[in-house]
């Protein structure tokens, strides 16, 4: 799957996460900002990376600003951002979730 543009999903409001995906060439490069990074940073990283891999993205720059989102929210926002970045929103790949 090829990234064509920058894709964003999510908000900066409480219990949400904002994911921004743009072109990269070095695997999944994740820059995570979270108030609960100490406790849940590894888990958030795992959810984002696995969602992108399931979707079929191997290289991407990902900026995630977390405001305490649950895993299901992180998955959904990651998928939406990935579909926007690859310009494939007309074919929702809900099986990734």
């Amino acid at each position, binding site marked *: 799957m090829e990234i064509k543009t920058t894709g*964003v999903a999510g908000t*900066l*409001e*409480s219990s949400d996460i*904002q994911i*921004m995906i743009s072109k990269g060439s070095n695997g999944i490069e994740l820059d995570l*900002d979270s108030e609960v990074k100490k406790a849940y940073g590894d888990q958030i990283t795992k959810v984002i990376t696995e969602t992108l891999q399931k979707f079929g993205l191997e290289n991407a720059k990902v*900026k995630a600003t977390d405001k305490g989102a649950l895993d299901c929210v992180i998955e959904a926002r990651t998928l939406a951002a990935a579909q926007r970045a690859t310009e494939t929103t007309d074919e929702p790949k809900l099986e990734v979730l």
Partner: protein
Amino acid sequence: MDRVVDLYLNEPATRKRWEAFLSQLDIHNFSDREIDVIDHTLGLLDEDGKLVGTGSIAGNVLKYIAVCNKDAVVGARFNKIVTALQQYLFNERIFHSFVFTKLKYSSSFQHLGFTELAHSDQAAFLESGTPNVEDYLDELPKIADQANKKVTAVVMNANPFTLGHLHLVEEASKSNDLVYVFVVATDLSLFNSQERLKLVQAGLKQLKNVVVVSGEDYMVSSATFPAYFLQSPEDLIQTQTTIDARVFKNIIAPKLNISSRFLGEEPKSHTTSIYNLVLKKELEPSIAVKIIPRLELGGELITATQIRREIKAGNLDQIKSFVPETTFEFIESNLAELQQRIKEGMNINGN
């Protein structure tokens, strides 16, 4: 639930309500310079329809962000308005945004994923999104073994590129292995940013150790620096220059191994002479500041301001001896267009 609405400041009643709200929160500067550049303004209304938050977009800069936290969870309204502003930018396909704000609010923006580029005792400058400053620096051309080379930099607006600019870069080129010439990207000059960049590149082609690049958003210009949150307009040049110098010193120079900066002496422009002074104070000792005397031709100083006045008057002969061939050709073939821009109100007496 608070809801986000569009505010149209050209409606007098909306404008009045907006200004009254900001005044309560200690923002009092509503000068044309600040307001005219705003592309869009959002408001946050509470359940009774009362204005409890606002924020604006000017290009890729967030401005006039203010929220009232009364009867609300601290931070919730701020997060909501910043999200809404970013959503607006994303819809415009702008994924990289900036904010200039009071120092005390820097941490609030950092909580929302903004990265601080620099701060002074009054102001902070932050960016968010992609491509960021690291991406910008990664993309710049580099030479082999740059970490052990002598590297310098020149920053110029070059409106337009003159023999004076050429002289300055030649001096830098003589005593260094590599010279970065950063051309200011702000589009408020007689020659637009693309024209300026092209003329600088053309005029310096013969110097093999010179790399000409756009300064993009990282050469902070006084022309676009928001002053609405400063205590007084007089603080503008000082604050802007301090921020500009610190971005250069702390972020740009280390990554490119830049150890000095060449500046043209400024006997004529008040703004630039303050700029030079503050720059020297901020950059030294880690970055040596070399101020080069202005080039004189036949007893006359060369200034881009003078060139622009001659363009207005149509004196091509006067221009010819002060600019490189490449700049002259451009002026000659675009004279009518340039004069038209001046006629339409482009200020030619600034920088």
